């Protein structure tokens, strides 16, 4: 089909042992996690937990040992990710660094940047956020206006980022900034560059934006004459768009794009036994979960082979988002509000609200389907 292929992959031979280790760890670490914590999962933030995950070698798993990594395979890393997500672990303090910022620095960073940042990400010490969206630039990301001007010894940043998840808790942001003005609107993808920005620099104001559930998760980040030194540019000046979009295959392909609400199915399953409609609904959900898992594994396998399956990743993310978004609604339809235990009710309540974000974060449904349509040959 128009070049989109999802060849089957096996999980690695080490998977059963790795899973056993993770399950024992997560059962202990997670015994006091509230339904809300599990509902937020990878948008949740728990530094102590992330440090413990780092100590056990489960961050930066595929990176070279010289940079604090563990030189394991992308599919072993996949096993770790899916085990974390299945229990709704609050992985947000290391998720972005492990998934995106670390690989970016490894691929395009200077030797100095690699030595400075990677070991601390891998140990769970450094938390990263991603500065992309702006008040007037959402899906049309390349129209962004926050600018970095060249000054002696570095760059001066002015402007504003929004919807930056956990910026108020993070140490560094990878920011996509305009370093050359737009002369022709058709050329707006040029003149963008990526920077490592210390969130505590003078001139940065971070204001949490409450989400619809009343929680502090995402933020508005204002830059007022913020100075960053030259050595914080990542990759090539002006190549920020290509660099950032190359990251999307990593950002969009993971199991977090279909598993966000699975902890609810696990938590609620035993309360569905008396519901006559439950077997069919649960069966359909499981059939889809098994299929999405294989599609997601397939993309992880392609990444391991050094391919850049950006379009396959877009398709899996879109299908996965539909799935994880529909799951709480389907369970709501089955759960008796009077007899359902309060813990399950609470998780369902949070997921009902949080699920709206699934098809927005990391590329909206409409943008993803546009990418798939172009792949199909529609213009």
């Amino acid at each position: 089909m128009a070049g989109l292929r999802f060849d089957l992959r096996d999980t690695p031979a080490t998977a059963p042992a790795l899973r056993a280790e993770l399950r024992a760890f997560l059962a202990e670490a997670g015994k006091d996690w509230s339904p809300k914590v599990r509902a937020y999962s990878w948008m949740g933030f728990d530094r102590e937990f992330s440090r413990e995950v780092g100590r056990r070698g489960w961050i930066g798993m595929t990176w070279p040992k010289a940079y604090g990594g563990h030189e394991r395979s992308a599919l072993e890393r996949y096993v770790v990710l899916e085990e974390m997500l299945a229990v709704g672990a609050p992985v947000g303090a290391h998720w972005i660094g492990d998934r995106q910022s670390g690989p970016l620095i490894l691929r395009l960073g200077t030797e100095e940047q690699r030595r400075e940042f990677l070991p601390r990400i891998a140990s769970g010490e450094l938390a990263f956020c991603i500065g992309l969206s702006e008040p007037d630039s959402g899906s049309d990301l390349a129209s962004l206006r926050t600018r970095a001007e060249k000054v002696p010894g570095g760059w001066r940043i002015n402007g504003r980022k929004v919807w930056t998840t956990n910026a108020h808790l993070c140490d560094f942001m990878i920011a996509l900034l305009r370093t050359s003005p737009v002369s022709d609107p058709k050329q707006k993808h040029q003149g963008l560059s990526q920077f490592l920005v210390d969130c505590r620099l003078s001139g940065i104001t971070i204001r949490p934006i409450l989400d619809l559930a009343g929680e502090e998760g995402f933020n508005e980040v204002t830059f007022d004459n913020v100075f960053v030194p030259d050595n914080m540019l990542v990759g090539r000046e002006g190549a920020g768009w290509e660099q950032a979009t190359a990251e999307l295959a990593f950002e969009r392909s993971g199991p977090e794009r279909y598993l966000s609400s699975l902890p609810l199915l696990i938590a609620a399953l035993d309360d569905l036994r008396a519901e006559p409609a439950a077997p069919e609904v649960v069966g359909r959900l499981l059939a889809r979960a098994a299929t999405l898992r294989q599609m997601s594994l397939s993309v992880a396998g392609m990444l391991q082979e050094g391919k850049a399956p950006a379009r396959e990743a877009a398709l899996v993310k879109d299908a996965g988002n539909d799935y994880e978004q529909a799951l709480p609604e389907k369970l709501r339809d089955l759960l008796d509000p009077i007899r359902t235990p309060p813990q399950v009710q609470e998780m369902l309540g949070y997921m009902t609200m949080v699920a709206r974000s699934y098809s927005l974060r990391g590329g909206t449904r409409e943008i993803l389907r546009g990418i798939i349509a172009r792949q199909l040959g529609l213009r």
Partner: protein
Amino acid sequence: MSETNDDLRGILLEQVERLLTDNSGPDVLRAAERGEWPARLWEEAEALGLPLALAPESMGGAGLGWADAVAVWQVLGRHGAPLPLAGSMVAAALLASAGIAPPFGFIALALPGEAVPWGRRAGHVAAVDATGQVALHAADPKWQHGRSLIGREPADRATLGTPLAIGRLPDRLGPEAALRAGALLHAAQIAGALEAVLAMTVEYANTRKQFGRPIGAFQAVQQQLALCAAEAAAAGVAVAQAGRAADRRGLARAEFEIASAKVVAGEAAGAGAAIVHQVHAAIGFTDEHPLHLYTRRMWSWRDACGAERIWARRIGQTALARGGAALWPDLTARDETETTA
């Protein structure tokens, strides 16, 4: 059965693709719907050894695995499966497994309660009951002719007499082997047909113009076709996964994957057909346009050997009985603890 290497499978699939491209098409599908047996196509398929391909070499077959079969059935589905080859392949495989040498020619697979596609043209009939007993019958002279309402293929019912031979399916296949293989073949044909109608629809959207531009340039149309592509991809992955599981663990222990494949392919058939018809609009609703030759078959196949809800209920019941704590371990363990063939 074994997993054939990728090169061999590639060659086989190319042959099947060429066979169908050269000898099939909308005219052959329409003729089949009028009850005309695709004799030439069947002869060519036999020349390639396809009907017996799943039987072991010692019984005149090629010893293909289920995953290979799934890939062949997808190609068949892409061409609207104008001949009852998939069912005949399954019949030969089950007979061979029960120790009965499968005969040459078209062997109709008779499942309890289901009409037999093209039964009237069968050389032999393989009847499988719910206990796993397989019986080989000579062709029934008294077929009660019928026709599938939606698929329009001949679908006949037999009154079977004394069998020529009786055997029993081994434990590895289980008493439900025929139903499961049947579910898998229909799911695989759906996955193939969905690819075909998606390609037809993309082509149509790029050529049909309204408001001065191809309708495929409209986001409303693009978004729908993207969704259709996701459904087609899901169906393809689900059937491949089921074929692999059947090779590794035997049909008896591949229920989850086969059920999932039938559920996902069945859902994809409904959702996908709705989209391709919406994009084709009125022309796709005509008898003249070939779209319905494929979509009607998809609708028909999703009901064969258990509709989505039947298979969904089964895996749902198992999961509910196992409980929430086992759900994730069960989902991840299937290919990690049992990889022996």
